[in-house]
């Protein structure tokens, strides 16, 4: 089944850039609520239900915590609710805190989605474009890490069963230092293997499996249009000293609708593809 993940990294990157940009900068509760539901519904599609449920609880706690602490640090705002040790606690600061908490939650959820969608191959694609050598080191590191973990496990087992009882921390340190030695010796073999296959010759190319198709272009264009429209309105909220809500004129409503669609693009895509898949299967 086709999924949102399968888009070209450029399309995906710009999508995440756009939604994160608006989520972080708009500081508009309505935008953030759209973002929250858009991101969490997509997150539910690509990860398992349990994880989403757990994370929702976490975000709610996070939002409350930030809401409660912001007035303690920030004493701006005109509407004073009460005093704590001569410090003004204001309604504006409280609301600001709630929006801030929501913003952090939305950003974190989008980042979680980003982490699930952007696997190493996509990160390498971006690095490889401008920093091919760094991209190679990145890929090598990802290859070495599981090797090191495996050899640590083996060495640690061997040490545990070597006949002498030692404290765990001492054994860990000993085993880790053996991992260091082994990995540095093996590095010499790796570099031989690289040289043997011509590493270091001039004009190295960078291979990636991605192809930018018309499909990718379409989605990129749609994202750009929705993003620009979302920014078109004058939707900024003011918190201090007074809470000022932007006017609900046509342009602003257009912005809200655009961002609503933008936030739900990945979720809708997953739903659409899922339905298409079921339909195709049913025809067989």
């Amino acid at each position: 089944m086709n999924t949102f993940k399968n888009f070209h990294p450029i399309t995906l990157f710009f999508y995440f850039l756009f939604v994160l940009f608006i989520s972080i900068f708009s500081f508009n509760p309505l935008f953030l609520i759209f973002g929250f539901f858009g991101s969490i519904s997509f997150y539910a599609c690509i990860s398992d239900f349990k994880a989403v449920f757990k994370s929702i609880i976490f975000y709610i706690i996070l939002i409350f915590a930030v809401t409660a602490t912001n007035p303690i640090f920030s004493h701006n705002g005109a509407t004073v609710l009460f005093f704590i040790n001569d410090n003004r606690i204001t309604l504006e600061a409280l609301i600001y805190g709630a929006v801030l908490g929501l913003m952090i939650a939305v950003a974190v959820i989008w980042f979680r989605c980003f982490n699930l969608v952007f696997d190493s191959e996509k990160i390498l694609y971006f690095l490889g474009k401008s920093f091919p050598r760094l991209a190679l080191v990145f890929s090598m590191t990802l290859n070495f890490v599981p090797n090191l973990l495996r050899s640590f496990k083996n060495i640690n087992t061997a040490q545990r069963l070597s006949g002498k009882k030692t404290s765990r921390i001492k054994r860990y340190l000993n085993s880790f230092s053996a991992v260091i030695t082994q990995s540095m010796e093996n590095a010499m073999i790796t570099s031989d293997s690289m040289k043997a296959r011509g590493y270091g010759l001039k004009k190295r190319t960078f291979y990636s499996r991605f192809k930018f198709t018309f499909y990718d272009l379409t989605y990129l264009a749609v994202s750009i249009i929705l993003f620009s429209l979302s920014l078109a309105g004058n939707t900024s909220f003011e918190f201090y000293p007074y809470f000022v809500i932007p006017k609900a004129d046509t342009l602003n409503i257009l912005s809200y609708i655009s961002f609503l669609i933008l936030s739900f693009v990945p979720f809708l895509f997953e739903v659409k593809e899922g339905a298409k898949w079921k339909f195709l299967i049913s025809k067989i």
Partner: protein
Amino acid sequence: MAKTVLKYVITIILIPATIILGVVLFSDRSYAVISIAVAFFACIPFFLCFERNKYSTRRIVLLAVMTALSVAGRFIFAPLPFFKPVTAIVVIAGMYFGSEFGFLTGALSAVVSNFYFGQGPWTPFQMFSWGIIGFVAGIISNPLIKNKLVLILYGAFSGIAYSLLMDVWTTMWSDGTFNLVRFYGAIISALPITLEYYVISNIIFLLIFAPLFGKKIERLKLKYEI
């Protein structure tokens, strides 16, 4: 050559430009974002150097190995909270292989370990913090290798520095601006952890692993003539 100069100029212009643009455009929530962008752009000259410089194949592999060691260390010592060898290995990378190598080990360690533990807006900040710790270690490599006291002091310093830099990040991210009160709050609440774990674990790891790496590198030099 002209191309490199251009690249550097762009970097040098990019950083102030980001700050100005940030302040003008998003007056309110500027600091957090500016800091991310600045931290990110600050890494670019090092990456560009790495692309251009003549690095031997062995050095490139060793860079990947050092990075992998620090990331694997984060996994291996996971049962012991806060007891992580990442900073220590970055310092070691800087002191034995030079400041550029140290910076790259630090920056890459952040990217790669966040690849396992989750990327976030903090990634560039972490890249820069660890990178700069490795960079400074490379500058003062001689005293670090020769004098144990300097090593201990730098271990403590880098633990505190890392913790402070990340506190700056926490403050800006959760407040939007650099709120001094919150910053102090963050420092004070993190103080026991900073002292007890970052500093002490750094010193322990450095005292154990720095001489070890010294010996290993000598050994490799003998055996493989790097």
